[in-house]
């Protein structure tokens, strides 16, 4: 879990230009971290590469917080 969060955090910090401390499990990707819908698509693509998995659109739509991402990855990888 911790390791997944670290890797996700790195990508988010990179893509969204936010401070690492802002990337908590509770943080909303759009609301708190300021991503727009294209950023989210971008982020998902990056995560797919990093974790070598594919995230279906229907699943991607349900992801709203950093915690959702970490949970999804841990469940599906």
């Amino acid at each position, binding site marked *: 879990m911790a390791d997944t969060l670290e890797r996700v955090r790195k990508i988010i910090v990179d893509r969204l230009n936010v401070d690492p401390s802002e990337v908590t499990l509770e943080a909303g990707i759009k609301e708190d971290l300021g991503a727009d819908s*294209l950023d989210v*698509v*971008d982020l998902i*693509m990056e995560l797919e590469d990093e974790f070598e998995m594919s995230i279906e659109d229907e699943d991607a739509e349900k992801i709203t917080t950093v915690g959702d991402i970490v949970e999804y990855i841990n469940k599906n990888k």
Partner: protein
Amino acid sequence: MLTGKVAVVTGGSRGIGRAVAITLAQAGADVAIFYAGNRAAAEQTIAEIEKAGRKGLALQVDVSMAEQVESAMKEVMASFGRIDILVNNAGITRDNLLMRMKEEEWDQVIDTNLKGVFLCTKAVTRTMMKQRSGRIINISSVVGVMGNPGQANYVAAKAGVIGLTKTTAKELASRGITVNAVAPGFIETDMTAVLEEDLKQQMLGAIPLGRFGSAQDVAEAVKFLASDASAYITGQTIHVDGGMVTS
């Protein structure tokens, strides 16, 4: 000018698409072409691309079929490793007066000329977004701006392409991808060879520059939009029509 770039040109076997494919190759790009069924013509285009010293790849793809388009783009990626330029050029006509137009004539033209642009664009956006750069050039038509009796299906599709161009440009701008349309006027290709002589003469009278266009005239505009020289232009329609439409 385009050295190291990879281009996909739909409808690259004949006419405008062939001229575009060869011109991009001469500017340094490797080029994949999609064609509907005319293998011999496609191979001729590939021979010209190779004569320019670049790599060519011909794929038989119906641009209106999502699965075919997706697997073809994957094949291009497997062969060339990237896609920098997409030219949505494949197009057909099924002319008829609106009141006589069959539903299938409407559907065929909308599917190839409009839906095909959507599907091919969608299939490259992921690649271009990751690259943080890309050039998408859609071939519309002067009649998409002016209207033309007997071409309700074609005009609707070509006007649709202009709207699609503007929206895609806005959606993808932040990722370094530009999207523009080229609207040719009357260009001498197989598509226009079938028109009757007196209709051609009548059309000639409506062209201020006093001649029909060549496929090369269109290809030069596409080459500009595909190059770094056009980096600050997006969402636009460039008219290559001898002055038929002025804005």
